[in-house]
């Protein structure tokens, strides 16, 4: 259930995102999920890709500052209140969310939420105790 995510430091300059996307595309690496957090000067691009090692090596070689982080992906029903249910479990367990992003999986009527926690193990225990379905890395990459 540990999912590898690549975080990339990006300056707020025209064309920087495109550079990253093109590098990955040209290398045949597919992006499964992404989010961008930004300030006025810089941003952090967070990516889940089908070949994490190859992608990190490539971006490093091209001079990007990156970090591999571990995130948790949970599958929830794609219905009103789905996300609130998971957050309620985390809240009751006293688990802090650093950040999160989500995407919808149309075919299965589900949504996937990617979480980054301060305390990975405690968060996983809390989610499992609440019977939340955690995706394995290969499951997520196959979606």
């Amino acid at each position: 259930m540990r999912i590898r995510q690549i975080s990339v430091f990006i300056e707020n300059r025209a064309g920087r995102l495109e550079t990253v996307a093109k590098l990955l595309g040209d290398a045949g690496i597919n992006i499964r999920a992404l989010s961008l957090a930004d300030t006025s000067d810089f941003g952090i691009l967070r990516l889940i890709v089908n070949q994490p090692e190859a992608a990190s090596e490539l971006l490093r070689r091209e001079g990007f500052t990156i970090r591999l982080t571990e995130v948790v992906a949970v599958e929830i029903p794609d219905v009103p209140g789905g996300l609130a249910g998971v957050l309620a479990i985390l809240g009751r367990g006293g688990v802090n969310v650093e950040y999160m992003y989500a995407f919808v999986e149309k075919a299965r009527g589900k949504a996937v939420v990617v979480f980054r926690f301060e305390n990975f193990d405690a968060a996983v225990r809390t989610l499992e105790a609440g019977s939340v379905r955690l995706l394995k890395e290969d499951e997520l990459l196959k979606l």
Partner: protein
Amino acid sequence: MKTRCFEKKYEMMGRDELSALQGERLRSMVARVYQRVPFYRRKLDEAGIRPEEVRSIDDLVRLPFTTKIDFRDQYPFGLFAVDMKKVVRVHASSGTTGKPTVVGYTRKDIELWSRTCARTLGCGNGTARDVVQNAYGYGLFTGGLGMHYGGERLGATVIPMSGGNTKRQILLMQDFGTTLLCSTPSYALEIAEVAAEMGVDLRKTKLRVGFFGAEPWSDNMRKAIEERLGVTALDIYGFSEVIGPGVASECLAHCGLHVFEDHFYPEVIDPQTGRSLPDGQPGELVFTCLTKEALPLIRYRTRDLTRLTHEPCACGRTLVRMQRVTGRTDDMLIIRGVNVFPSQIESVLLEIEGTQPHYLILVERRDRLDEIEIQVEVDEKLFSDEIRKLEDLRNRIGYEIYSILGLTAKITLVEPRTIERSQGKAKRVIDKRVI
């Protein structure tokens, strides 16, 4: 040309008499520091010079130099030649790394300093009838208190404004009838700009002469200041190690700055060989403090580039003149009157990052005020994938730099390798100011 000297006896002294006075003062100063400052005793011993061999001012060239590094090594009070109970004041400016450069004054030094600052105001024909608005910063910086005491010593009325609060400066300038203004040249232009916005024509006030220093400026700035403020703009020179302001000042003849050499003896040397250069040759300015009690200095290397001339001046002063400083022999920047060395910024980053940082200092003049931006490359060690932590890092760098320089710098985190790597020594500073 009508000249009003504050101390005519010294400012118009015959050259032979002046040399004899300087020789006598040098002799007694060298004997004093040899006895009281272990640092100088060691230096003179190493150079194989006995204090009694120093007989006239011509012997000065045999003596060793003092540098800013010596201030750092002797931090804070190691260069003082008197007991701390005789020191009534300290000031400080930035050093080349984290520690400030500390200077001290006895009561007599303060009196001497007041007189040389009064001479400075006298160079603009200032008298007891004048109203001096002092917009140099008060505090550890010598500019504010130096010119303040100078104004009082002259008998003028001093308005201790310090910097900033520009609208109030303009209001009091009109209401109190300010005749003499002391400020940095860029702040004088700021005052002009704000006055224009307020619809105040400063040329119609009683403002007569401005004493501008503490940062580099040009003839174009002088012209702009003179036109917009309706003043005669004089260039003044000084820095804390020698005493503060009141080391040298332009007179109304506008042809170089008279150095108050009966107290602060100037030489110009070749910065490579250390050899003394004759009149007219450009080189590094070096000062010897002949009369100060707390902090006498032997041949202090300023790193400022200029040249000297002994030709007679239209004002009648016989004191040697130095040209406006044209540059530096090191990489020091002057930003809003604050001395900034790239090494200071490097030491802050080194402390935070733990390894050799990649950074670039950008200096620009925006709206007449200097702004400093420091770009820091984010490597994998510094990088966090949380915005909050990166913002903390940026704020911490900004705070550490503020605590050392007293300047607010814009900190920008940039991607690796965005800062140009040159062969050999990296380019650390881009100074885009047009002055």
